[in-house]
Each structure stands twice: as C-alpha cells, then as structure tokens.
C-alpha cells in the first residue's frame, strides 16, 4: 500500500520548507503525490521518477555523439582531468547537500582547484558586504513571530520563494504578530509592479540601478537631515512616509534579493542596506536577510568557511593556503579571462546561467557535469555523471536562507547503481590518491570520525 511520509524537506528554494508530505508507491521507488509543496517543489519530487532520466555516465565521443560508460571509467576520467589541469574550476552546489560539498572540498584541495558556488553569480556581493560591514540578521522564526514592518527590496518571493510569504514574512500569525498580515506593514522596493509589490502597502517604484541612492536617502532622513525632492525616481514625501513606518515599527525586517545585489554597485548596495539596518536599530529593532535562492545554497558558505575559511571563490591552487578575491577568483572572471583549464559543474547549470562567452572559454578544456538531470550544461559537457537527487533519493544536511541547518530526508530509493554526490566525489578523491600514490588521508580520517573500524584495520 502507498504510504505517506511526513515532515519532508523540499529541495527547491531557499525557504527550505520542511513540512511537506509525500505519498510514495509500495516499492518505495516512485513519488505519487505531495502535500503542502508549492508547484515547483511538487514538480521536483515527480521529476525524480521521470523515465527519461539518465542513469549512467555519458561520455562525448569524437564525432559529437555521447556513449554510456561505467561509473569507474567516469571517476577515472574526472580524477585524471583534475590532476592534469594547472588550475581546475569546480563550480555549482546550488542543489546538493553539505555532505557532498564537503567531499568536493577534499577533492578540490587535492586537485589544487578553485572552488566556487552559485553565490558567485547570485548572493556573492552579499558576502562581500558582510565581510565589510557585518550581518545583523535573525532567523525566519523571529521574522514570523516579531516582524511588523517587512521590506522587500529587489526580490519577488511570490514567484521565487512561493511559500516564503505564507510561512514567514507576510501572512503567518506568530507569538507577537497574532493578527498575521493585518498587523504587518509591507514595503516593496522594485522597479516593476511584481506580484509581491501588489501585496505591499507601500510600493516604491525605484529607477533601476539607483538602489544605493535610495538607501543613502533613507539613512540621511533617519539622521534628521534634509534630502532632495526626488531621489532615484521616488518623491521625498514617499521616502519620508516609508522611513516613518520603519522608525515606528516594533521590528523591521529587510529582505533583499538579486534586484539589490546585482544592480550597479552590487556589494555596496547590500553594504549600505546593512548600514541602514544598523541605523534603524537606534530607533527600533531591525534585521536584514538575503533571500538565498536554492534550498542549500547557504550550505557551501558554511561548509567551506569551516574547511577553508572562505565561503566562495576559494582558490586552493597554491597548495599552502586558500586565497579568495572575487573579481579574480570568481568563476565568471576566471572563465572570461581564460584563467582555468578544466571545469567541473556540480548540481547546477552553468550552461544556462553563465554568459555565453564564459562558456565558450570553458569549453576549450575538459568540461564535466555532475547532475541528476539533463540540463544545458550536461548537453555540452565532455562527460555527464548522473547522481541521486538530494531531498528525494538522498538525505543530508541543508542550510536554509537564515543559515539554520535542517536534516532532509530521502523519500524514495534512487535508480540502481547511481551514487550520491558524496559517494561519487569520495571515489574521485580515492582515485586521485591512487594516481598520485598518496594516502587518502581524508577518507581514513572520516573513518575515525564515524567511529568505523575501516581506519583501524
């Protein structure tokens, strides 16, 4: 009989909902139905059971066709490509678990690679601003229970994070917010009238690319100084009204997205948003949070900061220490400047997300994709290695957008013989150790950490 599995985590957006219910078939191999998921989350669970999914690595042949090969051959090819390259780039990790990210960290160290994640083309500027100016943030639970003024700056959760507004930011009734959305003032800053802007009490339709000026105007007003009649296309009266709402709120929450951190100035827009949050704290309580895109894109920041001291753009090529400087060690810059000579795309689609010129440069060298599904990157790769889908066929730890770790479950078994990201990259690491005749120290150490007897034997 099909059975319902409850408290399932959703491997889609940064909200990382963990209240899904999934109906799986008798044999535990097919998802039949989901409850509580948004349309996109629902689709991901059904996608795993797609009959068109590849279940064996596919290697590009000289005539351009692809041929199925064994996992051992794929692991050997990847290990050799990484060892041969002078500066390989391993990029991705939008959609995998922390265990997989950690395994890739071990491979990257061995390969002297540059390790980068999707933040590089997403919330990377937020990291830079956080380095420069701190991060006065909170958890989504606090937002739900306390926030009565919520500001959405350059983000559209109604589409990008479909359950964000109902679980955390606009509609839910919390401990101090017992009247739900009736009690919350919503301010939206967006050049377009998005579906989130339609829900807002105040919509500031800003001139695109002038976020910094508007933040500066808010800060100037909060310190009691005068501002020009129009800033960034917004009238002074509207700015004063919005600033007044924020000052008089009990708990102001600023959520910002790509519209803030990917217009001109990038990290500086986030930097001044953080300064604005700090200023607001001399009037009331205020907090700020990046609307992280994927369910575990906060994960690599956590895992690699622990492993190497930096959250993204980690250049391990020196062998002695990690070096990070986005602009130099960031994926797009490396690709555009022809600075890498091997590319491994893990759990994301660089083919779709990178500028075409960057992909052209990367395609001059070995191009490997590790992803459960067919995507644009897999179709232009020299080698595509399918893996299990995290959150559906593979459990693991993920970090929600507020950096809260959540243990995700698996609901069905993966296709026979298909490894997880962690298993695959541990094998790549072992193969690299074999080829270089070195000891696989991390594998041995992991044996100790797990209390297993493999290391002692």
């Amino acid at each position: 009989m099909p059975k319902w599995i409850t408290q399932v985590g959703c491997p889609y957006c940064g909200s990382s909902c963990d209240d899904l219910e999934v109906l799986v078939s008798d044999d535990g191999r097919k998802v039949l139905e989901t409850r509580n998921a948004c349309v996109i989350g629902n689709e991901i669970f059904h996608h795993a059971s797609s009959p068109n999914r590849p279940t064996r690595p596919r290697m590009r042949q000289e005539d351009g066709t692809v041929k199925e090969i064994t996992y051992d051959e794929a692991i050997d090819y990847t290990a050799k490509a990484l060892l041969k390259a002078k500066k390989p780039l391993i990029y991705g990790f939008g959609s995998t678990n922390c265990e997989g990210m950690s395994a890739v960290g071990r491979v990257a160290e061995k390969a002297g690679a540059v390790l980068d994640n999707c933040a590089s083309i997403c919330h990377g500027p937020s990291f830079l601003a956080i380095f420069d100016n701190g991060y006065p943030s909170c958890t989504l639970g606090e937002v739900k229970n306390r926030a009565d003024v919520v500001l959405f700056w350059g983000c559209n959760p109604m589409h990008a994070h479909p359950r964000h507004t109902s679980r955390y930011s606009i509609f839910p009734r919390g401990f101090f917010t017992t009247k739900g959305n009736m009690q919350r003032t919503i301010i939206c800053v967006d050049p377009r009238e998005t579906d989130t802007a339609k829900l807002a009490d105040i919509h500031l339709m800003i001139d695109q690319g002038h976020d910094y000026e508007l933040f500066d105007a808010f800060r100037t007003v909060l310190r009691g100084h005068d501002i020009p009649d129009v800033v960034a296309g917004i009238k002074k009266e509207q700015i004063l009204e919005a600033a007044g709402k924020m000052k008089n709120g009990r708990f102001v929450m600023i959520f910002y997205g790509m519209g803030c951190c990917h217009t001109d100035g990038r990290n500086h827009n986030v930097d001044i948003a953080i300064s604005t949050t700090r200023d607001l704290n001399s009037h009331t309580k205020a907090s700020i949070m990046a609307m992280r895109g994927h369910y575990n894109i906060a994960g690599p920041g956590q895992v690699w900061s622990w492993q190497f001291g930096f959250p993204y753009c980690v250049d391990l090529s020196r062998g002695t220490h990690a070096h990070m400087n986005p602009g130099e060690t960031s994926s797009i810059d490396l690709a555009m400047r022809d600075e890498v000579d091997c590319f491994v795309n893990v759990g994301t689609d660089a083919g779709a997300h990178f500028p075409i010129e960057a992909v052209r440069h990367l395609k001059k060298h070995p191009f490997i994709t590790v992803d459960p599904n067919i995507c644009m990157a897999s179709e232009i790769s020299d080698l595509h290695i399918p893996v299990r889908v995290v959150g559906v066929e593979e459990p693991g730890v993920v970090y929600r957008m507020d950096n809260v770790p959540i243990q995700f479950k698996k609901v069905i078994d993966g296709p026979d013989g298909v490894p997880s990201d962690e298993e695959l990259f541990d094998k790549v690491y072992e193969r690299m150790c074999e080829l270089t005749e070195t000891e696989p120290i991390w594998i041995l150490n992991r044996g100790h950490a797990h209390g297993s007897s493999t290391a002692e034997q």
Partner: protein
Amino acid sequence: MALVTLKPYKEPELYLECNNISPDAFAGKTAAEISELEVREGKTRVLLGDYFEVSGKPGDTAEETDIHIAGDCSRIKYLGTKMTAGSIKVDGNADMYVGGWMKGGKIHITGNVHSFCGIAMEGGEIIVDGNAENYVGSAYRGDWRGMRGGTIRIRGNAGNDIGTFMLGGTIIIEKNAFIHVSTHAEGGCVIIKGDVEGRVGGQMVKGDIYVLGKIQYMLPGFKKIGTVEKDIDGVSASFNHYIGDLGERHPRSKGKDIYANLFVMAS
C-alpha cells in the same frame, strides 16, 4: 642605480603569479639567480627564467635596484607587490595587483592595468599611462583599513571602487571614472579630472574628493555649503563645496562634526 632588464619571450598558458618581481626580491642576486626565482602558473611551480630573459645586475639593496620589463605583462599578476623601494617600469600592460600592499619605491606602467592596482597601498608611487580597471587603491575584501599612503596616478579612465575604505594617500584619475569613489573612506584624497557617473563619497566619514568634470547622479547625503577657489593638480578653478555623507556616522572634534568634503568644479 643598477638596472635589471626582463624580456618576456614566452606567453604563459594561464596567468603567472609573480610576487617575486620586485626590487626587494631581486636585490643582491645575480641574473642567473633571478632566473631561478620561483613563480606560479596555477598549481604548477615554474621559474622566472622560463618566461623572461634576465640581464643586468641588481644593486645590493632594493633602493639601488631598478627593474625594466621590456615587453607586455598582460598575463602577469602581482608586479611589485609589497615592494619597499627601487623602481619597476613596464613597457606595456600589466595584470592584477600592480603595487598591491606597496610600501615604497616607484612603478611605471606604460600601458593599461587590470583590477586591484595599488590595493591596500602604504607608500610609494604608481603611474599608469593607460586605463585601470576596478578597485584602484581599494582595501582588500573585508579589511576596513584601505590605502594608507602613497600616490596613484592613472592617466586614463578607471572603473568602479576607487579608494574604498581609504585612510590616506592620493589617487588621481586623469580621465573618467565609473561609480563608487572613496566609499567608506576615512581619509585620503581622490582627484577625478573627468566625469563620474555617481556614488561619489557614499558612506564616507572623512577625507576629500575633487571632481573636475561632472557627477551625473549626486548622492542625497551630500549638502552644498559654499563655493571655494582651489588649485588642484595644476588646475585653478572655482569649486562647489559639499559635505557628507550625512547618512553616515561622523566624529566630533572641538565641538564640531567632522564631515568628508566633496569639491565639484563649478560650471
């Protein structure tokens, strides 16, 4: 002064990280020893002599050593990083980090430089005859102590992030700049002789900025307080004097608030 000449004869496949090309590293060595200095291309270690023909002899100390690179360095990073004295001249372009963390001496690049030129500089002089990309005289990521001294002169255009977190020293851009000049600065002086698109002096606490061209988008946190006559880098003119960034914190001294100054040439 003793001159060492490096002549590039082979282009690296990727980029060379040449922290070793500086009067400090060359001083007291022979040409053969300099050829043996280790530089990096990705994870591989190579020798300076694999890419450059070294001739001449350096002085016994960095002060007495001049380096002339007779060729293009478009794929050479870290030229003159952390140098304390002496000079480097490049006939052509240079890549990232020219004169980064530099403490003294002089660097002259006749072509363009890439980003991070003079990052976290403490002293000395950098002259670039061409254009610079982004982060001229900026701070390293996360460091609130940016450029502290010295002079950077870019004869062409510059990109964004000029003098971020600057504490001292002078940056002169002789043509136009894009956005973010002296963001977060607490000292120093930036002179832009052309136009700037905007964000001049955002979150700035102290320091001076002179713009001899136009600012397309003025920040709302800057307030005009008067007009002054000034003689700036050989140009005498009347300037509108603004103070700011009024949205940022400012120290008090002798009962007065200290603001950053922005001077924009009166049209």
